[in-house]
């Protein structure tokens, strides 16, 4: 057996590598690809249709915000319909990672359980955004502009201020990857550091509370563009990493099947 990088003895509670339950990689592959679908739906729906990339400036007046929703109401309705589907994929995408985290953990899979609860709650924030936009575009002519301004601010706050559960999931992934004691790590170790990095990088998102203009406002260079590239880039990278882990799992299953066939 290859020399391990760790001195930890395998726990006798853990099954030998060949005995671990096989993962249905066909389903997990679909789930990993759903992360890519999420990003595409974001670009098409929110970028091209709704033209909310970047967000309308928080410095705009209430009347300007109301006019914007009246002008774009049809595009916003179509866009939010697409985005409701696309953003639901945050759950399937994140669970494709969690399935492999279970492989990394020994004994009671604490990080796996915590991530399941975390992501189940997290994707609700995603869905809240298109639902609120759709409600605003439903009868924008009759709504009080002041009310629309509050609701519009609220959507962007839901989007950007809800960063902590998403950053914490990255920390859970990092802890699982860096604590992986399998002879062949499930994810490469750099994935752990990459997740720690992205978790730290999206922290400045919290500054949107303080500014209506400049780099830290919710349409700013840092709190919007930078945080968005990091977060949605993270989704793309993690989809790729999970697809590679699926390939490795298929090869492992084939090797186990070949050995069993030879033994029989």
């Amino acid at each position: 057996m290859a020399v391990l990088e760790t001195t930890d003895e395998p726990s006798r509670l853990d099954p030998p590598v060949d005995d671990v339950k096989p993962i249905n990689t066909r389903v997990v592959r679909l789930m990993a690809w759903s992360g890519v679908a999420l990003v595409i739906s974001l670009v098409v729906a929110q970028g091209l249709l709704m033209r909310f990339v970047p967000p309308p400036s928080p410095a705009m007046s209430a009347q300007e915000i109301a006019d914007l929703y009246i002008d774009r109401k049809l595009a916003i309705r179509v866009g939010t319909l697409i985005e409701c589907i696309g953003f639901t994929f945050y759950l399937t995408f994140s669970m494709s990672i969690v399935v492999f985290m279970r492989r990394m953990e020994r004994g009671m899979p604490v990080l796996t359980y915590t991530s399941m609860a975390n992501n189940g709650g997290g994707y609700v924030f995603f869905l809240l955004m298109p639902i609120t936009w759709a409600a605003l575009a439903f009868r924008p002519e009759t709504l009080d502009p002041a009310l629309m301004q509050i609701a519009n601010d609220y959507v962007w706050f839901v989007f950007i201020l809800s960063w902590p559960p998403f950053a914490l999931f990255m920390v859970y992934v990092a802890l699982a990857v860096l604590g992986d004691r399998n002879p062949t790590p499930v994810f490469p170790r750099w994935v752990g550091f990459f997740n720690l990095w992205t978790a730290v990088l999206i922290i400045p998102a919290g500054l949107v509370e303080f500014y209506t203009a400049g780099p830290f406002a919710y349409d700013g260079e840092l709190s919007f563009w930078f945080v968005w590239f990091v977060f949605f880039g993270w989704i793309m990278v993690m989809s790729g990493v999970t697809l590679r882990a699926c390939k490795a799992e298929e090869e492992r299953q084939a090797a186990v099947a070949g050995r069993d066939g030879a033994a029989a």
Partner: protein
Amino acid sequence: MTAVDVRTAPDTAGQPERHRRKIPGEVGIWMFIGGDMISFSFLFFLFLHYRANDTAGFTASQAHLDQNLGLLNTLLMLTSSWLVASGVRFAARQRGDLAARCFLGAVGCAAAFAVVKAVEWGGKVADGHTMSSDEFFMFYYCCAGIHMIHVVIGSGVLLSMAATVRRSKLAGNEQRNIESGATFWHLVDLLWIVLFALLYLVGQS
């Protein structure tokens, strides 16, 4: 079994430590540091970009800063980095007791850094310079705040390093983690030095 670096062990066995490892820590931590430096560079670029549009305003606001407090914090950061580097050297020689003392000393410097920052910020707020006063003070609070998050995370890393080296003998992967943690702390120090130069010194004659 003694844990060794599997990638380099077979052909370098018996060579001195400094030849055996090419880089401190592991590749992943350098990726993290590279990434963090890219994001801070972006922040520094934004600062200089906004400053270029309002040089007079930035210089006027900058005059309210106390350079001595900034310098004091720079010295605290440099001292902490020196302590961390010494601690790593003690840890490599299996002097865990001295290494732990160095790491705890560095945490002490970090705590002092935070106290100085709190005093400085408290004084500024009392004088009416808050994070929404103007663009200079926006950067002054936000950049130093983002850096302070790094100080807090780094202090947690240093505390866990101190707890690790207290144990009698370090395994190979623990030695590697110590180096990774120390490398992160040097980044925290380096970022402050750039911030000090940008916020307190740029444009002052």
